[in-house]
């Protein structure tokens, strides 16, 4: 019963501590439970910051390895989720800053969901794929801090205080960056949607 509950709750404090203690007692295999519980959210954050799946997977692996190496330094009274997100965020941002990439143009993005139809089973799935790709594309037009803040705010449902704790950016600054990032995203989404309408006409 406990395990069922633990596996269903992403931020379940007791479950995390239970597995951390087992790993610290030498049961390395228990670390796979920690990975399974958090990998999707860690991967999603890395993906939104890095912009592609291969790099996001590498960052996710590196982040969990860092977590494992410094597990004995983790203070059991604090939130494991916040600690993990901080590591994923910092690893992703460092990764992005270490590589250079050309600026994407709006022309780089496909005009319509039909472009995704070949890889999706239904029209609904194609629309989801389209939106997901559009978001990933639009996020790449923001800087890495803004990408992280947007992901933590919308996908993880965190408030500005929690985001500040993870990113190390002051709360007022988070609010400013969040506002600017929202405006940029809306502008990009608006432009792409407009392009889509013209394409249909």
């Amino acid at each position: 019963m406990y395990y069922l509950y633990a596996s269903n709750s992403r931020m379940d404090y007791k479950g995390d501590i239970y597995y951390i203690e087992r790993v610290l007692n030498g049961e390395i295999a228990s670390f796979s439970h920690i990975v399974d519980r958090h990998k999707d959210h860690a991967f999603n954050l890395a993906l939104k910051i890095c912009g592609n799946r291969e790099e996001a997977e590498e960052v996710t692996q590196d982040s969990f390895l860092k977590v494992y190496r410094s597990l004995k330094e983790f203070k059991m009274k604090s939130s494991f989720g916040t600690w993990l997100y901080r590591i994923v965020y910092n690893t992703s941002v460092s990764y992005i800053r270490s590589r250079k990439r050309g600026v994407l143009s709006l022309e780089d993005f496909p005009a319509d969901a039909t472009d995704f139809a070949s890889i999706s089973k239904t029209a609904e799935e194609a629309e989801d794929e389209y939106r997901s790709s559009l978001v990933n594309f639009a996020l790449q037009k923001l800087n890495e801090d803004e990408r992280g803040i947007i992901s933590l705010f919308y996908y993880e449902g965190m408030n500005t205080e929690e985001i500040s704790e993870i990113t190390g950016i002051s709360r007022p600054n988070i609010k400013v960056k969040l506002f600017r990032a929202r405006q940029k995203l809306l502008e990009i989404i608006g432009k792409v949607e407009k392009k889509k309408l013209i394409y249909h006409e």
Partner: protein
Amino acid sequence: MNEAGKLEEDILKKYLSPEKIEKAPESVTDRIMNRIRIEPASGMISVKTQKRSLIPLISCIVTALLIFIVLLLPESSFGELPRPVSDLFKNLNISFPDLNNLHLPSIDIPVLLTSLFVAIFLLGLLDKFLTGLFHKGSK
């Protein structure tokens, strides 16, 4: 938030909702665990270090107990102890005062110091024994 702000927020939430998080590939867990298995086990190191830090402590306690038994028990009480134990203490007792008669006339070595030398020797032996024992257990 005004009407326009709410509308913008709704548009963003259509694209960025928690239900739309992208899942990590299934193989990620295996890959991470494979990398961890070839790492020096940092978690284990801390446990081993903790265990090893206990060894000198246990050794000190045991040795101190042995010394205090020898110093505090009256001579007659050795007879009541089991034979191998009493034999050990008797032997130790014999070897203690001899160090005072070495060719170092100007230095007066107290009896306690000779006991300490014996204690260090015993401590070394016990340490070696316990290290072997813990090391074997952690493999």
